[in-house]
């Protein structure tokens, strides 16, 4: 890790003025600094800023510095948010990592993390090592010929399903952005991952009220039982009346360059009976437009299976 200047402002205004890289839980920043992937000269520790609190009055408002473990344990949080958080990382990391920082965590692509290897996201124009390399963990949706790295967050998946918004604060003032619009696909500029402006900070995560999301879940499929990123995950919520699906929310993780809401699957579920056949027919749509790589073709099947499993576990309470 390289030497840096540390400031610990107490107010948002002061934080804006530092021009430093923001440090919250440090679970991404410190990790990547150790690997020399990030080499900030100035670091602004924002933990003293008043960005705490979980308000469940109308929908959900979560201060950006709330720790993952605190959010997961809050009784007013929709089940799929809570489950996604609890299936992330380890207890120690969840105790440190903030909800805002979680949404900004960098990809786990091994080439991004190894400074000796070409990576367009870390070193624009240097090339993508994953396309012809080890890409089993990589994306089948939302990728480009410049980058195929998956977005690593679990909780971002239910949050896009719930159409969450972010409050942002920068030198030019405050604004609100839908999380789905916040992330940018890699395209020609994989180094640009979101619409945050220089010096701008996430201050709050807002989840619009959706009462039927009380019936929701998150399923994560991975290579070991804990402390591992998703090969594929699915957040699902259903609004059911008389055995018929009135509305649905479905998003998937581990398979795309951003948390990936599947509006087509949601539409296909609407009006259908709560039944395995409906789930399978709707999940098949998740395979549309997928672009598998040399080692991750199985994800095309896995993403459909994971959605069906999540819907079955939600409706039948299948065993875990």
């Amino acid at each position: 890790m390289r030497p840096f200047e540390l400031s610990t402002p107490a107010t948002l205004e002061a934080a804006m003025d530092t021009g430093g890289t923001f440090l919250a839980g440090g679970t991404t920043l410190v990790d990547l600094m150790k690997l020399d992937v990030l080499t900030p000269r100035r670091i602004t520790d924002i933990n003293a800023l008043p960005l705490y609190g979980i308000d469940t009055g109308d929908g959900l408002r979560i201060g950006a510095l709330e720790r993952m473990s605190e959010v997961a344990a809050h009784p007013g949080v929709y089940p799929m948010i809570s489950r996604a958080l609890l299936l992330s990382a380890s207890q120690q990391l969840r105790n440190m990592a903030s909800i805002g920082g979680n949404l900004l965590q960098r990809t786990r692509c091994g080439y991004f993390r190894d400074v000796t290897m070409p990576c367009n996201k870390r070193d624009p124009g240097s090339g993508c090592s994953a396309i012809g390399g080890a890409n089993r963990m990589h994306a089948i949706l939302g990728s480009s010929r410049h980058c195929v790295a998956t977005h690593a967050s679990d909780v971002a998946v239910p949050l896009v399903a719930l159409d969450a918004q972010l409050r942002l604060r920068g030198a030019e003032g405050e604004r609100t952005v839908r999380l789905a619009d916040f992330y940018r696909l890699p395209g020609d500029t994989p180094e640009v991952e979101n619409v945050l402006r220089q010096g701008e900070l996430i201050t709050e995560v807002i989840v619009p009220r959706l009462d039927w999301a009380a019936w929701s879940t998150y399923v994560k499929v991975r290579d070991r039982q804990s402390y591992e990123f998703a090969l594929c995950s699915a957040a699902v919520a259903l609004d059911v009346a008389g055995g018929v699906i009135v509305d649905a929310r479905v998003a998937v993780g581990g398979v795309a360059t951003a948390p990936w809401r599947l509006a087509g699957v949601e539409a296909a579920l609407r009006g259908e009976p709560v039944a395995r056949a409906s789930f399978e027919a709707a999940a098949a749509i998740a395979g549309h437009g997928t672009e598998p790589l040399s080692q991750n073709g199985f994800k095309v099947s896995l993403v459909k299976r994971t959605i069906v499993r999540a819907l079955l576990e939600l409706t039948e309470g299948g065993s875990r």
Partner: protein
Amino acid sequence: MIARLDAAPKVTGQAKYAVDHNFPGMAYGYVVLSTIANGELAAMEVTAARHTPGVLGVYTPFEPLELRTPISQMLGEGWVPLQDKEIAYYGQPIGFVVAETFEAARDAAALIEVSYTERPALTSFAEGLATAEDAKTGPRGAPSLSVLAEGVESIEDALAASEVTVDATYETASQNHAAMEPHSAVAVWNADGLTVYTGNQGSHGPADELAQALNIEHSAVHVVNPYVGGAFGGKGATSTPAFLAAAAARNIGRPVKAALTREQVFTATATRPATVQRVSLGARNDGTLVAVRHDSWSSTPMSRSFIEPTSHGTSREWYATENLAISQKAVPLNIPPTTFMRAPGEAPGSFALESAVDELAVALNMDPIGLRKRNNSAAPPGEDLQWSSKHLDECFDIGAARFGWSERTPGGRVDGDWLVGLGTATAMFPGLRFPATVGITLRADDTAVVATSGADPGTGLLTVLSLIGAESLDISPEQVTPRLGDSALPPGGTSGGSTATASAGSATMVAASTVIDELLRLASSPGGPFDGRETAYADGRVFADGRVFADGESMTFGEVLRAMERISLTATGSTAPGEERTKHSFGSWGAQFCEVRVHRLTREIRVSRLLGVFDAGRIINPTAARSQLLGGMIWGVSAALHEGLDVEANGRFANADLAGYLVPVNADIPEIDTHLVEYPDTLLSNVGARGLGEISIVGVAAAIANAVYNATGIRLRRIPMMLEDLLED
């Protein structure tokens, strides 16, 4: 329960590992690695690195530290870094930067610009199979061997004549030991010579290698390693940081500390080879094996440092068969060095053989345990020397009853969304011992020191020494101070081949008997407390007139020494494998049982129950023994479902860190049941123990694959097994 003597210092942080040693004026070294897999160093631009504040030395093959190639008795010709410009693998040590701080050394290392004359690299095992060569004749014999019944011309004929045959090819991945303690060293020179603090499997070997490499007297090198954070075969040879720290410390005249980063450990040490194995089994309809053929290919580096002896480690000995043919090929690649890793040969070999036996049981429609029992061997095929003590059938019987094997159905069962299957496999590891010398010192305060140079890298040897020492001296373990991990001690107790207990244990018994003889001689010598009288020893006491009885005239050994104004009395005892090997074959045996659950949709494989029943001779410390067994079985789960180095075309390991090289977490490991049938094997050594460090990993991967087959009907022949291997669309 017998507590591990090193438990408290370890869990309270009092245990000082190699890099926990600090000295005034100490500098820090950082190793630089190659980023190509084959070629030659053309140039290394080090000016910027050398001018980095705090940098004390930059060493490369262009400006090397002088190191000579050592030759070790156990490992053959060694390798020392920075001595030539040839690059044979990605991640090869090519430089060493020494600075006032670790950070300065590392940052300066990043400024070194390396240019290479690159040559095409052969890194793919699959592609390398075409240029496979016969393995060298090793300790287990010639690469190919066959035993044929009278009148049988070839193994092909024997297989063709078999009523039922199975024939399949299995693959196992290359693995790294990934010990918690990375390879590291602190080197200090003073007027007496060199002291190196470095984790290893026995301090004598590295002391010898360092003396040779640095061209100094053996007596001038002192290697210290009282605590070792895991070794598993990966710390047998002297590590790159130890060689470089010692040489650099001499060069700059200051102590030097060097440790590999976690990422560097994966390439700058050595790994378990990858293997491909073809197994053909022929049997009669009643399940009697009549032909076993096992052909193996092992990856190996261009230096041919080591091949994984999968055929020799399993099919050579495990089952009775009239016809046997095994072969071993090496596949030289531009990959990091290969070496011993937990149950070398047996662990990956058993995945192939024990999967094949399960396939044969399916083909025969026989119970897999029944099939194994039918083919139990009394001696290795074609050999006269019978197993000294083998109770494998009992292991299977006990295991089957404990595990509920009778509930198993050929198609497994369904529990909610999970497909549940049971599997079993045989485990075996040879019964070996190494030459060992142990010193025992009786002290005037009625305590004793039992000392040998070997290591306790978590195996429990330290506690075993105190227990066997106490038993042999007929005193309580509290009176015994065991000492390990210092090359100044008598040479013995090297951690390797599951031999330490049998080797150091039997030498302890000899040393005890010698020191007691000397004590008695001393006591009855002129001026001794029992001058001119016969003496006898029991219960830590010397008895007068050669008679041991309660209230008899006696003195403790401490009282004898005090009476003679002696501080202590020392003797050594040495043992070595000998004529017992001309009378019997030796091996530990076991039966592995496993239950797996496979999700019917998303196909994750999770192990839900494990049982291992083992026949490993006498057990010295049941607590530590169980701990060793658990570690090995968990490692078997890891090998089956998680661990595997992913070698890219350019020779880079794609997953060279613990985020990418997965090992199980607690949630992956179910309750594990172990049981030991305890039949002391005094034909192997007088201590009766055969050792059980390695046997418990053996067979686990096959038991899991066999259970997956039972659950799903899908036969997986490659480890690690991944969920996509079970996705049918």
